[in-house]
C-alpha cells in the first residue's frame, strides 16, 4: 500500500500544466507570477480549466468540513451598517442623476419647441407623447430605485431597532450590575461593621478578663498573706462570710469574706473579695451581732476589684457573738442597727 502510494506521489509524470494547479486552489503558491501563470492557463486551456473546477470543488468541500460557528449578533449589525453607508452614497448618486436628467428633459424641450415656431398641434401632440413616454420610463426606473431604497431603509430601521434593543439591554444589564455591586458593598459594609463591633466587644472582654485576672492575683496574694499571718503570727480563720446564705437576699453571688482572729489576744483581720462598688452615698459596714446590741466594727471601701482588708480589735472574744454581717449603710452616720442591704453573712462557731 505504501509502495503504491509512494509511486503514485512521484512528481515525474505530472503534466507541467497541472503542476501548480492544486497549490493555486489551496492558496499555497509562493509568488504572484506563479498565480498569474496558472490563471492564464485556466483562461486558455479547457483541460486545465476542467481540472481547476474539479480541484476547486474539492477545496470547497474542505471549507464545508468545518462545522458552522455562530458569530456574535453584533457582526451582522455591523455588516448591515457598512452596507447601509454604501447605499446612502448610492442615494446621493441617484438624486444627482435625477437632477441632471430633469435638467435635460424639462423646460428646454418644450421651450425650444415653442421658440422654433413649430407649435403645430399635431407636432405638439407627438412631442407630448414622446416626452411623456420618456418621463414614464424614467419614473419607472426611479420608482424601482426608490422601492429598493425604501426596502433598505426598512432594513436599516430594523438594524437601528436591534441596536437600540442591544443598547437598552446593555444599559439595563449595567444598571443591574451596579445595583448588585452596591448591594454587595452594603453587605460588606454591614459585615465590616459587625466585625468592628465584635473586635470592640472582644477588646472589652479582654479588658474585663484583665480586671478579673488582677482580682484573682490580688485574692491569691491576700490568701498568701493570710496563710503567712496565720502561720507566723498565730492567727486562725474563724468565720467564712458568704453571700449565698439564706440570710442574704440581695447581693453579689460571688462575693465572700473571712475573719481571722489571733489565737492569743483580741486582734482580728477581716477580709472580703468580689464585692461591687456600693451605691452612691453608702459604704460597706462590718457588724458583730448577737451579744446585746449589734456592734458596728468599721465602715470600709473596696478596691476596684471588690477587695478590702481591715485589722481591728474584737470588743469581746468572737464566740460571744452569734454572727458576722456586712451591710451597706449611709456614710453620713451609722445607726444603732443595720438598716441597709445585707451583702455578706456568717455564723460564728
Amino acid at each position, binding site marked *: 500500500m505504501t509502495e503504491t502510494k509512494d509511486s503514485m506521489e512521484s512528481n515525474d509524470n505530472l503534466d507541467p500544466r497541472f503542476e501548480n494547479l492544486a497549490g493555486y486552489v489551496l492558496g*499555497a503558491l509562493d509568488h504572484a507570477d506563479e498565480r498569474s501563470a496558472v490563471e492564464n492557463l485556466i483562461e486558455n486551456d479547457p483541460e486545465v480549466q476542467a481540472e481547476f473546477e474539479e480541484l476547486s*470543488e*474539492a477545496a*470547497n*468541500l474542505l471549507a464545508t468540513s468545518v462545522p458552522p460557528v455562530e458569530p456574535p449578533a453584533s457582526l451582522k449589525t455591523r455588516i448591515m451598517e457598512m452596507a447601509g453607508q454604501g447605499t446612502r452614497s448610492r442615494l446621493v448618486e441617484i438624486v444627482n442623476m435625477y437632477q441632471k436628467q430633469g435638467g435635460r428633459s424639462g423646460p428646454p424641450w418644450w421651450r425650444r419647441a415653442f421658440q422654433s415656431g413649430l407649435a403645430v398641434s399635431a407636432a405638439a401632440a407627438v412631442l407630448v407623447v414622446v416626452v411623456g413616454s420618456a418621463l414614464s420610463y424614467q419614473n419607472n426606473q426611479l420608482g424601482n430605485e426608490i422601492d429598493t431604497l425604501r426596502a433598505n431603509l426598512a432594513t436599516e430601521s430594523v438594524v437601528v431597532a436591534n441596536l437600540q434593543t442591544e443598547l437598552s439591554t446593555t444599559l439595563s444589564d449595567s444598571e443591574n450590575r451596579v445595583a448588585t455591586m452596591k448591594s454587595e458593598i452594603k453587605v460588606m459594609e454591614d459585615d465590616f461593621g459587625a466585625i468592628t463591633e465584635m473586635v470592640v466587644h472582644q477588646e472589652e472582654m479582654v479588658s474585663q478578663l484583665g480586671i478579673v485576672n488582677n482580682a484573682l492575683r490580688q485574692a491569691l496574694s491576700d490568701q498568701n498573706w493570710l496563710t503567712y499571718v496565720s502561720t507566723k503570727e498565730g492567727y486562725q480563720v474563724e468565720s467564712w462570710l458568704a453571700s449565698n446564705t439564706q440570710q442574704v437576699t440581695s447581693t453579689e453571688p460571688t462575693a465572700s469574706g473571712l475573719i481571722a482572729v489571733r489565737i492569743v489576744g483580741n486582734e482580728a483581720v477581716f477580709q472580703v473579695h468580689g464585692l461591687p462598688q456600693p451605691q452612691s452615698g453608702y459604704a460597706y459596714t462590718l457588724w458583730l451581732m448577737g451579744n446585746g446590741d449589734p456592734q458596728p466594727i468599721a465602715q470600709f471601701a473596696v478596691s476596684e476589684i471588690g477587695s478590702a482588708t481591715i485589722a481591728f480589735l474584737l470588743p469581746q472574744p468572737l464566740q460571744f457573738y452569734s454572727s458576722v454581717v456586712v451591710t451597706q449603710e449611709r456614710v453620713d452616720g451609722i445607726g444603732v442597727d443595720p438598716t441597709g442591704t445585707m451583702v455578706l453573712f456568717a455564723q460564728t462557731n
Partner: protein
Amino acid sequence: MNYQGLEDLELLAKIGEQDRQALAALYDRYGRRVFALAVRMLNDPLGSEEVTQDVFMSVWRRGASYTSKKGKFTTWLFSITHNRTIDELRKRRRDRSRENADIDDHLNIQSGDISPADAAVARSEYAKIRAAMERLPVEQKSVVELSYFKGLTQTEIATKTGQPLGTVKTRMRLALKKLRTALSAEMGAQS
C-alpha cells in the same frame, strides 16, 4: 418578499440593486460557515469577525459581477473567505507578536479540536467530509492541512516537512482529487 426562499443567484441579483435585505438573507445563510472557516484557520474569534465582515462587504460590492460561469456560488464565497484569511494569517506570521498558536498544535483536524457541539453533527455532512479526510494517507492530509488551513506555501511545506517540492505539489493534487472522488458520489458534490 420572502428573501429566505430565494436562490443564491437571485439574492446576488438583488444585491446588485443594492438591496440590503438580500445581503442579510445571504449572511443568514452562509455567515456561520464563513465565520467558522476563519475561526478554524486563525484560531482567533475577533480576527475572524474582521474576515467575515470583509468577505460580506466584498459580496456586497462585487456580488453583481458574479456569474455562474465562475462556478458555484459557495465555491466563490469560500474562495474569497479562504484567500482573505490566508492574507491575514501570513500578515500575522510576519508579525510574530500577533500569532496565536504554534502551527503544529492543530495539525490533526480529527483529534484535538472537536468541540462537544461537533458531536451533534457527527452524522452530518461534516462528519462525512472529515471521514473522507481521515481516509487520506497521512502525508496527503498533512499537506492539505498545512496549506489550506494553516496558510503555508508549497515551499514552506517542503521546508517544514523535509519533502521535495515536487512531492508536495503532487500530494496536494492527489489529496484534492481523492477527496472529491470520495465525496462526490455520497454528496453529489453539493455543499
